């Protein structure tokens, strides 16, 4: 970075008699006007984006909730009370937790193990492997769900949590390995080399040195995998059949249809409960890493 030169041009310009002394310079006035236009534009877009979000929050506490955004006449927690039963909320959320927690754990462990040799050792196989991984990150998983279903029926994995967890992990692995490898490349090699000379095995140096040093990276991979699985509808919708096995992503559809009229207030309350964990996780990681979730950096071309 070159040292910054003192700014001689600005004082000489402000001294020119054309500009009245008490107003701002034209440049700064232009900046201000520009900022106000930008603010106004953004707020208009935000207003459009916020309406559906406002609906779900307001309806969940509105005694007479319907499909329209409006301030409730009377605030009530009745909808939350109505949905907080073992059948409606607790079991589906526990199923979600089991599926996504299991899937995420498997993803993170496999990704960390796989990323280590890819990041640390030179091999002719690294490049083809990474290219395949990158290719797999962008395959439309939706398209293979019909054959996965047919395959799971054949090998008796259909309607089991284990099968769904394994598939969740496999579908999330390519991106997790890619991210993990990139984060691992950022950890300097010197510390590990010191450990190697002291007789540490690669596994020990991965567990004791590399992973602790890339804590934020591991957090990003974990949270990202979990959030993707938590919100995924199609995979459990296809691979699970029994209602009491279903995660919240699928069971939420019960609010529609089979009972005739839809109680929108309860649907909204359930949506809030179901969405809160992922929003909190996202906020937690984003605050530690400063916006962007490091995803912008991970996918930039």
């Amino acid at each position: 970075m070159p040292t910054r030169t003192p700014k001689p041009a600005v004082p000489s310009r402000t001294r020119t008699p054309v500009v009245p002394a008490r107003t701002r310079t034209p440049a700064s006035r232009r900046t201000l006007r520009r900022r106000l236009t930008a603010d106004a534009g953004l707020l208009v877009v935000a207003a459009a984006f916020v309406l559906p979000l406002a609906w779900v929050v307001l309806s969940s506490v509105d005694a007479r909730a319907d499909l329209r955004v409006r301030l409730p006449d009377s605030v009530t927690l009745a909808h939350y009370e109505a949905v907080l039963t073992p059948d409606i909320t607790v079991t589906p959320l526990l199923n979600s937790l089991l599926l996504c927690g299991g899937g995420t754990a498997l993803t993170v462990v496999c990704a960390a193990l796989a990323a280590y040799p890819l990041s640390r050792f030179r091999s002719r196989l690294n490049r083809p492997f990474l290219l395949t991984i990158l290719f797999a990150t962008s395959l439309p998983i939706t398209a293979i769900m019909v054959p996965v279903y047919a395959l799971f029926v054949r090998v008796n994995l259909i309607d089991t949590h284990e099968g769904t967890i394994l598939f969740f992990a496999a579908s999330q692995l390519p991106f997790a390995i890619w991210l993990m490898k990139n984060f691992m490349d950022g950890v300097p090699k010197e510390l590990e080399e010191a450990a190697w000379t002291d007789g540490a095995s690669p596994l020990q140096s991965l567990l004791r040195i590399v992973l602790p040093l890339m804590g934020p990276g591991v957090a990003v991979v974990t949270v990202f995998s979990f959030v993707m699985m938590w919100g995924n509808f199609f995979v459990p919708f296809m691979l699970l059949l029994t209602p009491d096995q279903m995660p919240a992503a699928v069971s939420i559809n019960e609010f529609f249809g089979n009972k005739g009229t839809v109680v929108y207030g309860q649907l909204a309350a359930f949506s809030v409960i179901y969405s809160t964990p992922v929003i909190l996780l996202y906020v937690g990681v984003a605050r530690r890493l400063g916006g962007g979730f490091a995803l912008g950096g991970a996918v930039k071309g």
Partner: protein
Amino acid sequence: MTRRPGRPPHPALRSLTRALPVTPATVLLLLFLAGPIAYCVSIAFTDLQLTGQAEDSFVGLENFRTAFGDEAFRNAVWLTLVFTVVSALLGQNTLGLALAALMRRASKPVRTLVGGIVVTAWVLPEVVAGFLLYAFFRREGTLNAVLDWLGLPTQNWLYTLPILAVSFANVWRGTAFSMLVYSAALDEIPKEITEAAEVDGAGGRRRLWHITLPMIRRSIGTNLMLITLQTLSVFGLIWVMTRGGPGGRSQTLPLFMYEEAFQKSMIGYGTAVALLLLVVGSLFSVVYLRLLRTEV
């Protein structure tokens, strides 16, 4: 001391132990990703059905011939195209870039607020996003309330323009991704360059066209590829909002595939459609890899 100094293990053995940690991931990927893809290729050429069939038989290209002759399939291809162009290429991409550019000039509280709202829409589970936008577009919903208040004509959006309603839903849900990618890209343009252009008297539009866009063109390419691929595989959002209806007027390829395979029990035919979707996705993936080729 287990190993005598000066005598490293045999190179082949060494590379084998080094490759060992990659095994669990490789096994999972082969069994649950490569396996289904191979299976997809093999059953796309059969007449496999869901139930009541003793033996499925090889039918060659019959499923593909059926597909291209099928009015409903051609409709689904067309709708997928509309959905992708309107919601990803025009909607998410342009709005994401506009938001990223505006955010650089906006004041900090506005930036935080707007970023928070847009990203929340993105983080929400797909099905919840579907419900929110279902409520928004319904006849009794918020959009009509707003239009009514502005004195504009209202209509039953999910019935009259279902594909447009689901496209807007996808814009609402997906714009944050483009916004994050472009924010990162714009941060990397050196300030000196834009300032120099400004001093030389280049207006806003010319700066955008001749400086900003060329400098972030790689990010634009990457972003377009990724959002196209994401949009091609949207299922839950449309399923919740319209079930592909009314009368197939918002039935994109994933929904068509699902209906053929499960509601009509034609697994072979549904898989053939899936294979076509997979081929299109792979072509996009290859282009994406070429865009990134210097990175690996």
